[in-house]
Structures are given as C-alpha cells and as structure tokens.
C-alpha cells in the first residue's frame, strides 16, 4: 500500500524513487503526443522496445513514452538522455542505429538531427535547437521527461511538493494571497485574475463548494490543454487540489472535450494513482482536507467552454448559458459557489507555490505575468506548441521560434484567440504578446491558438470560415447571436461568391453591433471579432471582392479561374486525368497544350495539384 500520509512521508518516498534512478543512465524518450501519433510514433516506440529486447540490454537502457514535446512539425521525436540529443522524423528502421551508434558508441546520426534552414548547420542538443532555445518551458517542459502514466516519474521531478507545502504549511487565505500577488490571470481566454476569483468563491455564502477544470478547449487550432492533460496530468491535478483547499471545495470536476480520448485515459490513470497514493480522497497528506475529482466528458459543443454552459452540461442539460448577473463564484454548479479555471491556469499554481511570487512576477509584462503556451500552426515552418514569457513579440514567436513562413511566402496575418479573436497584420508584428495589448488591437489572447496566414490566405474567406463555425455552434437561444452569426455568414458568403454589394461592409458592422451588444454570453459577445478585425486591417480585400469581384489571394472559387500556361504545359495529360468534371481538353503527346474550359471548370484545384510542372496558374 503506497499511501502517503504526511509531507515527511512524501519526501522519504521521493528520495527512495530518486535513489533508485541513475541520472546518467542512458534513456530513450519517445514523444507520444497526438501530433507524433499522427506521424507514426507507436511503431517507432515498438521498434526501440524490440531492439533493446533483442540485444538483451533492456535493463541497461531506459525507454520511456512521454507526452508531447511541442515540436510537432518534426515528429516522431526522440530524445536520447543524458546527452539530450534530439532526433526528428525518426522511423522504426532508425531504432537499431540510434541504439548502437548514439547510445553505445556516443556518436550522433547527422540525418536525424535538426538542420538550421538558413545555415544548414546540424544541431544536436534539444535546448540549442532554435525552436526550443527561445522558449521558456516552465509549465510544458516536463512533458518530455515523464511518462504520464507514471506517478513515480512525477514525484521524481518534484511533484506534489507544492501540495504538501500548501496543505501543511500555509493557511487557505495565505494561498489565495500568494496567487493574487503573483498576478496569475486565467489562461482560458478571459484573463480574469485567478486569485481574485478564488477569493470571491471562498467568501461566498454556502455550505458546499466546487472547483472545475475547463478542458473543453474548443478553439479550432488550439491543442495546448490537450497536450498538457495527456503529457502531465498530475501537474494540473496538483494545482486543482491546492486551489480546492484554498477555496474550501470538497469536489472537483475536469470537463474534457469529447474529441480527446487519450487525455481522458491519461487523466483517469492519474486520478486513480493520485487516489491510491493519498493525494486525493480523505485526509490528504494528513491535513484533514478531503477532496475528490470526477471526469466529465463533453458531448461535442463549442459553447460548453463558456462557464455557465459548462455547468449546465455537467448537470446533464443542454449547454445553454445562464444569465451573467448571477456570478458563478456565488451560485454556479448546482447553485453552489463554484470556481472554474482553465487547465493551464491550474498548472501554473504549483510553480507559484514552489518558487514564490517574486520569481513569478519577474516573468512577463506589468499586466500579464508568467508564461503562456501557444499552438503555433498554419503556414509556419515550425508548427507546434511553444511556451514563452508574456511580452515576447509576435515576430519573435513566428520567425525566431516558428522559423518563418512555409515556402518563403509573405506573411499576411496571425489569427489569435480562436473564433473570439481577430487577425493581427504585418504592421503589428512587433506587438508584445500580452492580454491587454492583443485586446487593444482588436484581437485577444484567447486560449492560445496562433494561426499564421500567408499571401494565399483570403481574409474574407477567413471571416466567413469563423462565422460558419459560430452559426453552427451558437446554442441558438438569443435572437441576436443565432440570427446575427447566420446573417453575417450569409453576407460574407455572398461577397465571396461575387455577389457583394455596396453597403455590405456597413451591413456587417450593423450585424456585428447587435450580435455583440445584445447577446447573453461571450460566444455572441465576441463573435463579430473575426469580421471586425479583418475589415479593420484588410478592408481593401473586402472592397476588391465587392467592387471588382476579385479575390486577390486566389482563394474564393467563384472569383478565380484556373488557367494552363501554354508555354509550361508538357502535354502529359495528368491534369485531364485528375479533372472530375471533364473540363480540360487536349490530347496526350499531341502538339497542342492542354486547355481548361472555364464554363465546365468547378475550381476544385485537382489539376493544380496534379501538375508536376507548375503549368497551372490561378488568376
């Protein structure tokens, strides 16, 4: 029975675990985050297991499946310890060589090392790779060092020390003071001061309190919370237990999005282990504090990320938000005082307790302390999850860490904050990333999605994409939101079909006003942001669509034509073969270049993809 019943017992156990581990023992860590999963990491892990077994060295070399390392573009990722050599795009057939060459002979395998795109230099150490070098991986860094299904791994890196300190050396009000002083703001999108929320909840009248972890992560393109829950679930739990103690809550819920089965699985394992070891349940670490956590799976509704809708969902209802003049910290889940925070917010708490507010406040800007994890995706070279101090500029994130735009194309905009956010143009690339600065320019931090767009992204199409999303995800209760998002989509769709009219921009602004002002919750309240920000910074694109019936980026099907450049056509016929609507005329090996018939062309782009000679252009 492993149950630990005191802080002393915890440290004894930690010493025992560490003494059985040799930091110099060779260890192969294989990233098994979802991105690497899609890239095929499990066959790689299997291959390593086979190699170690075959050579009878499984006892001398550790093999560990870890959570997401963040550098998703280069997966499957493997890091060889203790040298911390990073290998990227590893294939199962590489396993043999990694073991024999790197581990046994101490030599690196050039072709698997990260290659600097400009200098061609091969970089071996993980922390020297530019992608990682500029980051500050306080919260996310441990993902690469632990097996999420092993609580012992978590203890080995100092896990649950903050919990012991909080429960046995601090009073609840002191914990709240510390969190307030740290300046921690909610990482889910609202950016509300966490300590203040905790205090209001603690002070609310009532006999029972709840804490909730919002893991609904509905913003398309954002997957930080998922990777944190999959890769280091105990860090989130530890934060929740500390928070529950400070607030006086006896029960907690983790509401996980339906589309995250691995996160649910790893969280369940962590909950079971934490309970077994005494970090959850009754009389935690001998403090007299009882606390238990349940997992609640979402049913597939973006609106359930909104706190009152989430609580309705946990109660077993459809996710319709409730009136906001009733504060959930006073009357939330089952009408009891409830404190809801995002996954990343909870994960910050143990660090604040362990290292103190002075340390925490040194990171970030005046208004936004600490670090933030972003999902850097879209038309950027190094897509993945990055953790940076608040205050770093967009330029540094996109170019120094992200490696710039794919294919050397021109940067156009970066979309932050998901469907509630906006697009930030090139002129603002030196904007320091922080809650208030992003809001000032018409976007918002949101949960941390950062979608990079290039010259071939149509901003009107982007606005239309978000409106399509929102009109489907609106709960539908408020006329202003349900009809507002629907009609904004309708106008944007018309514009992209070449049916835009003078006055459409003003019409969109009218709809934006009523949707934002008249709706009950933040879904409607922020729905117009993608439209308004693209009108603000890319009005010329709207006008090109409306007045000239032209899509400058070459995206909107109704406004573009595919054309075969006769001088580049090799008369191979690939395009004709790929065309689903018999819109290309020509004969293979004849003297005449192929030709696209515009009246039959459905602008599907298959010919463009099929042509190996760059002979097809979009006009």
């Amino acid at each position, binding site marked *: 029975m492993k149950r630990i019943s005191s802080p002393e017992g915890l440290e004894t156990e930690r010493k025992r675990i560490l003494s059985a581990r040799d930091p110099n023992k060779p260890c192969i860590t294989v990233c098994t985050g979802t991105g690497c999963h899609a890239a095929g990491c499990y066959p790689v892990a299997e291959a390593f297991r086979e190699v170690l077994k075959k050579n009878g060295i499984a006892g001398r070399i550790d093999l560990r499946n870890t959570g997401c390392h963040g550098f998703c573009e280069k997966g499957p990722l493997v890091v060889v310890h203790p040298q911390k050599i990073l290998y990227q795009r590893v294939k199962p057939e590489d396993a043999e060589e990694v073991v024999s060459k790197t581990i046994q002979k101490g030599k690196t395998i050039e072709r698997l090392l990260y290659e600097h795109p400009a200098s061609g230099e091969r970089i071996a150490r993980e922390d020297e790779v530019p992608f990682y070098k500029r980051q500050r991986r306080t919260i996310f860094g441990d993902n690469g060092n632990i097996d999420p299904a092993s609580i012992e791994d978590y203890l080995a890196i100092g896990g649950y020390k903050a919990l012991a300190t909080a429960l046995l050396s601090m009073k609840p009000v002191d914990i709240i003071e510390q969190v307030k002083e740290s300046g921690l703001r909610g990482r889910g999108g609202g950016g509300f001061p966490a300590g203040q929320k905790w205090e209001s909840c603690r002070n609310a009248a009532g006999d029972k309190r709840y804490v909730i972890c919002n893991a609904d992560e509905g913003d398309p393109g954002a997957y930080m919370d998922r990777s944190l829950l999959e890769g280091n679930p105990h860090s989130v739990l530890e934060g929740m237990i500390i928070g529950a103690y400070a607030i006086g809550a006896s029960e907690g819920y983790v509401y996980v999005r339906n589309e995250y089965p691995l996160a649910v699985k790893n969280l369940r394992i962590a909950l079971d282990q934490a309970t077994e070891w005494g970090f959850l349940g009754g009389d935690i670490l001998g403090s007299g504090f009882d606390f238990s956590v349940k997992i609640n799976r979402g049913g597939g*509704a973006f*609106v359930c990320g909104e706190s009152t809708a989430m609580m309705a969902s946990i109660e077993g209802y*459809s996710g319709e938000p409730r*009136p906001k*003049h009733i504060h959930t910290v006073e009357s939330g889940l089952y009408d009891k005082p409830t404190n809801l925070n995002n996954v990343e917010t909870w994960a910050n708490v143990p660090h604040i307790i362990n290292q103190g507010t002075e340390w925490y406040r040194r990171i970030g800007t005046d208004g936004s302390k600490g670090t933030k994890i972003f999902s850097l995706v879209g038309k950027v070279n190094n897509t993945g999850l990055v953790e940076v101090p608040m205050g770093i500029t967009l330029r540094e994130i996109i170019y120094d860490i992200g490696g710039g735009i794919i294919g050397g194309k021109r940067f156009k905009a970066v979309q932050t904050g998901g469907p509630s956010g906006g697009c930030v143009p090139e002129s603002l690339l030196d904007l320091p990333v922080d809650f208030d600065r992003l809001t000032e320019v018409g976007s918002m931090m949101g949960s941390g999605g950062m979608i990079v767009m290039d010259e071939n992204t149509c901003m009107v199409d982007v606005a239309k994409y978000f409106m399509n999303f929102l*009109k*489907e*995800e*609106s*709960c*539908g*209760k*408020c*006329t*202003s939101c*349900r*009809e*507002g*998002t*629907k*009609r904004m989509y*309708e*106008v944007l769709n018309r514009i992209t079909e070449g049916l835009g009219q003078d006055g459409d921009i003003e*019409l969109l602004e*009218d*709809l934006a*006003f*009523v949707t934002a*002002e*008249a*709706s*009950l919750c933040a879904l409607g309240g922020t729905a117009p942001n993608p439209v308004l920000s693209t009108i603000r910074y890319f009005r010329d694109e709207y006008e090109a669509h409306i007045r000239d019936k032209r899509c400058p980026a070459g995206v909107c099907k109704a406004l573009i034509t595919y054309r075969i450049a006769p001088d580049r056509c090799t008369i191979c016929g690939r395009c004709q073969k790929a065309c689903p609507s018999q819109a290309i005329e020509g004969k293979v090996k004849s003297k005449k270049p192929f030709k696209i018939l515009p009246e039959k062309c459905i602008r599907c782009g298959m010919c463009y993809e099929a042509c190996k000679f760059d002979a097809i252009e979009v006009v």
Partner: protein
Amino acid sequence: MIRFTIDGQEVQAEKGQTILPVALDAGFEIPHLCYNESVKPYGACRLCLVEVRKAGRTRMTTSCTYPVTEGIEVSTQTEGVLRARRLIIELVLAMCPGDDAIREMASELGVEDVRFEKEDKDCILCGLCARVCDEIVGANAIHFARKGSHREMIPPFEKEATTCIACGACVTVCPVDVIGMREDGEERTITRWKRTLKMKQCKVCGNYFAPWFQLEKFRQTANLPKGSFDVCPSCR
C-alpha cells in the same frame, strides 16, 4: 421596497422582481416577445434590452431577467438600445416575414424592409409554448432541439407529441399564433404538434368538453376516483 430610476423617473419595486414588469406597470413601453408573467423570464428574444447603470458601470441587458436593485439607473431609449431593438426586430422579420404580429411590431419600431434573404419560418423561437407546458401544465410535450441556426421547437423525433394533453395553453400564449387548435366534432387537434385527441362527452348536456387523455391525467395526478370528470364544468 427597492427604489431605482427608469429614464430618470423614480420607481419602486419588491425584491425579487425584474425590471421589465415594473417598467411596464409604470407605463414605460418596452417591446418584448418572449416575456410572459405566468412563467419564469427566459431572455431569448433580446427585444426588451435596456441600459443599466450600476456602481459607475453601464451595460446593456435584457430587462426581463435583470433583478431590480437599489439605486440602479435604467435607460430604455438610448441610441444604442434603439439601434439594437431595430436590428433585432429586423432579424426576426427576416426569419418570419409572414407573421402579422412581427410585421406590426417592426413597423412600430420603424423597420419596414429586411436586408437579408427572407426565410419562410413562422416560429420565432421564443420558447413560451415549452415553458408554459413545462412550468404550468406539467405535460413536457415539446421543447427546443438542436442548436445554432438549426434550433427548432418540436415534439421528440418530430412525431406526434405523445404527452400533450391538448389543453391549448401553448396556443394561447404563442405571440405569433402559429400553433393552432381546431375541433372537429369529437376530436380536438393541436395542429403544430400533430396531436389529435378524442373528446369526452358530458353525461348531462352531451357536449364534448375536454380530451379523454387530459382528464385521465388530471384524475390520476389528483388521485380522484373514476367517474370524477363525467360531467362538464357548466353542468356541475
């Protein structure tokens, strides 16, 4: 007693009331569609928006759901409120251009045309029918289904509403009168919910006065003996 102002005028209200009924009683005209004093406020139509100033902060909110609070300043005719109202009624009119009640309300607010593609819906999704059916009648026969632009008010599986007792409460409360009830001899039909029930005849006067199904439900709920509803209310 809670004292506050509406458009500069002092009003008094009881704790627990919301702004809208107090304002209407005091003679202020605030358009509304989904509010009915017999059921809990819902806040779906958004027409009853007002601006509320409290502790130095002003926000736009639905007056039907906002609880009266000491010292708040309510404004019902600000530029923002009027603009929002007009846009909302335009959106409802675009949804249901055939509803006379909506056309009338729109006209009163100065909205004659819509700038969007007209749909041909008739239900304005105010939810009053379901709210009355749940809160007062207790039959729970219909409710909202789906979400977003696909939200509708339907019986389960869009089939006949099998727990409907054909009392007609929903028909009465519907602001746009799109539910419909008709009686053909011994049958009563609630048109929209495809519910047809056979009516019971009074043992004394011979008139059909209520559906069998409904009377049975009442008798069972109130634990009354058989034969309790053999005679109609007029003859009793």
